[in-house]
């Protein structure tokens, strides 16, 4: 639990001060390492809200980061249940 809190603080610091690709990479890594890393999806939702445009476009519109993080979350848990490594 302690590791998870430290990780959350680290990811939130990255979100506010580091380039976005650092945050994206960290979230992907932590989704793989931790079980049910919902903080990643929450952060993606915040990123979508702050950086999406009112135009309806999937790539730059609302939902791209949230849906991508959910997809990674689901794929990672599915892969974990099959290979039983992590």
């Amino acid at each position, binding site marked *: 639990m302690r590791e998870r809190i430290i990780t959350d603080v680290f990811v939130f610091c990255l*979100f*506010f*001060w*580091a*380039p*976005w*690709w650092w945050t994206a990479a960290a979230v992907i890594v932590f989704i793989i390492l931790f079980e*049910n890393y*919902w903080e990643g*999806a929450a952060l993606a*939702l*915040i*990123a*979508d*809200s*702050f*950086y*999406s*445009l*009112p135009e*309806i476009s*999937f790539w*730059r*519109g*609302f*939902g*791209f*980061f*949230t*849906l991508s993080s*959910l997809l990674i*979350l*689901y794929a990672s*848990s599915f892969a974990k249940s099959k290979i039983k490594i992590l």
Partner: protein
Amino acid sequence: MTKIYPQNRDRFAPERSKRKIKKTWIFIFAVLALLGATNGEARNFAVKTIVIATSPVFNFSRFVAEKKDNVFFLFKNKQSLDEELNYLRERNIELENEIILLESAKKENEELKILLSRPDKKSYILGSIVSRPPQSPYDMIVLDAGSDNGVKQGMRAIAYGSVLIGHVVEVFPYASKIKLVSYPGEETNLIMENAKISAIGLGLGGGNIEVKIPGSVKINSGDKIITEGAFHHLLGTADKIEADALNPFQKIIFRMPVNLNELQKIGLEK
């Protein structure tokens, strides 16, 4: 015959319920995201709520970043500060000379605008940058000034009083989003000052803008590029010129003339 004990039968029950909870959460998040992606009103509601709720954290992060810069400045070594000071002194003399030339042009410009009944009195709403590239994934800036400060959608964002960097695309009570002129696919009407030709600048992302003009027009690297309209703003200077004898058009790529990492405040033209 194998006997199945009740405790064995229920062994996977907690796992199943855990998986069910997870699926429910994924479903809720996905529905929210899809609703926001396809429905404008749902998106606006979600974005407004999240931006209002998280704005104080963003403002705090900006405050911490400023303090961090101040602390790091104390530890800069003396030699690099000396070099920087000398460079700035030389640059100051250069700029002072330029100002002398510009003053007369400015005076003439003002007189002409008064003659044409277009007084050059512009007022701005000043905002501090909360988030900028590369923290933001696209060429977009979040400012701490919003509708409560009088910011309206479509206002032009000006840096250093003369450089157009973008326009306001979304406004919240305490924050606003600025789409930069270099945002991918963003079109800006511009004039190549020396060649006196107007064209459309197409944003490429990463602070770059591309212009296509006829190959017969003579353009040099360093030529000023300004906005169209009665009040010109600087957009940049021609940087990379790609001309091909087989192509009737030449491509000019230029960058925004401001360093977004150093920029602290932006003026929104009223």
